[in-house]
């Protein structure tokens, strides 16, 4: 069994990975909020970029919007059976 298999197939280890992921999310958000206050690094082009945790919020909203909107368009219009073009 390879390293990856051990990590993914053992429920205890997989739960640990999951926890690590959530901790990582919190760290990223905090870094995005706190670090600019400490270092005053970079110069955003737009005022909305100064909003606390802008990247995290926009990333989550974008991801959800892309999935939901695309699936709606797809179901309503674009998606067809695979033999759509076969005669």
């Amino acid at each position, binding site marked *: 069994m390879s390293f990856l298999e051990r990590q993914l197939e053992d429920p205890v280890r997989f739960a640990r990975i999951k926890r690590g992921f959530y901790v990582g999310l919190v760290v990223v958000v905090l870094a995005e909020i706190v670090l*600019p206050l400490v270092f005053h690094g970079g110069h955003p082009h737009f005022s909305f970029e100064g909003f606390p945790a802008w990247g995290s919020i926009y990333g989550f909203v974008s991801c959800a919007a892309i999935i939901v909107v695309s699936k709606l368009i797809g179901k309503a219009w674009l*998606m067809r059976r695979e033999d759509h*073009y076969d005669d």
Partner: protein
Amino acid sequence: MTIGWVHPGLVLILGAWVLPFLKGRVKRAAMLVVPAAALVACLLMTRGTHGVVSVLGQDLVFGRVDGTSLVFSYVFSIMAFLGMVFALHVEDDSQHVAALTYAGGALGVTLAGDFLSLYVFWELMAVSSVLLVWRRREPSAVAAGFRYLLVHVVGGLVLLAGIVIHWAQTGSLAFGDMGAFSGGIAWTLILVAFLLNAAVPPLGAWLPDAYPEATVTGAVFMTAFTTKSAVYALIRGFAGTEILVWLGAFMAVYGVVYAVLENDARRLLAYHIISQVGYMVCGVGIGTELAINGATAHAFAHILYKALLFMGAGAVLHTTGSRKLSEMGGLYKTMPKTLGLYMVGAFAISAVPLFSGFVSKSMVVSAAGETHRAVVFLMLTLASAGTFLHTGLKLPYYMFFGRDSARTQERRGREPPRNMLVAMALAAAACIVIGVFPGLLYRHLPNPVDYAPYTLQHVTSTLGLLCFTALGFFLLLKHLDPEPTISLDTDWFYRRGAAAFVKRIQRPLARFESGTVGEIYELVIRRPVLGVASLLKRFDSVVVDSALVGVGRSTESLAHVLKTAASGHAQHYGLLMAAGLLALVVLAMLAR
């Protein structure tokens, strides 16, 4: 040292024809030496104008070498090399010849300083690349190849029409900035032809139609050359054209939307080519120094990571024979190396810090920021999230992880041939080197670079964007399960629309044909023709016939006369000769 100027594209195009004559190890060596030689020829090029040929009072420039063409020629020849490494195991000469010719065409376009030579190489690319589709030799591939060729022939004709009109109007074939002719018909036609090759919607449906149907190795070449040579042509001719900003931003989002719906692994990646080229087209449209640098840098980085991603998906197709995400899963157990290398490409395209996309894509996004285009900035950033969602999460999740059903277990492959892994490793190394040492790439960009990708704000907001895209992915995972469907795109117009159109107009057309057209034909063609024919017939029987009969009769009577002389007896001829001689002698004596 003066060795003159060697056209690197010609090295590939001519070198390709050596391969069919070689065998075994020598052939495989030549497959690497030819693109390597082209790369060396690119590196040896000095800035300036080379290879000028005068035809019809026009200067054809085969070697316009400057900052822009140099950096594109580098990446095209590097890509030709990587592609040949990936294809080293393929025993099909026609594919190798086509691939090298295709790459040579791209180099020809890059170095062309005039429209005519640009056009020749442009068409060469279309004709050679279609072979890479056809050589998969499945009915669906043959059909897709014909559609691909059809679209590009139309695009080529539009380009030619634009060139001819431009030539007639200006008297010059020089290919430079077209801004002065903005809005004119030549300007429009040439722009449309360039946009078609750059796969800009609604002219871009040929790309996700054809690329997934190409051979495993052929598709890797195709991802690199057609769209990026079109981006190069746009940089040359149409930098700062406002409409490109919006087309590019729309493209970036369009590709992402279609990628959500897609089930075919390579077609999903093909839609992400459109999305990524959107950033470049947008950068060309913005047109500032930073934006042009960004478009160029992104083209460079994109060619390498996109090739890597197509190599990964191609390796899975090669070993499992499966192209649909709904039929895959659990491959990480048997193809961990492929997974690891694929993920480098996925991180690069997703602009993860320390990978190449991070230092190239952000230049375009920053250029949108610097020019205060908030909507474009938001669209491009949204597309970034979508890119990570698909190539970084959805595709690897369903291909390498996901459910591990009995059906996927029997399809499970091994690692691909070693040359495929080596090619992927080389491309992956390039993605990381560019990401870690962006200066290596920035040094070759057309404009001086005053841009720092690794600012605190940029790194933290990018990490936030990516991590929370991942969160969204896992929360909405059940809505993302790939479904065995295909998606309508503008190729509908020539796949279905044309047929439906013909069906609809068939009957009225037939009625019109037999009614109106038939009567007009009777009146305008049939009757006059019959009248003239009968006139000619009478002339023939009266004048020509009697003349011929007369000639025949006189010949016959002459023959009767001659027949008495030509008796066939030698003594008669001797007698005649003697009589003649006697007559001559008498004549000579009398004449004295």
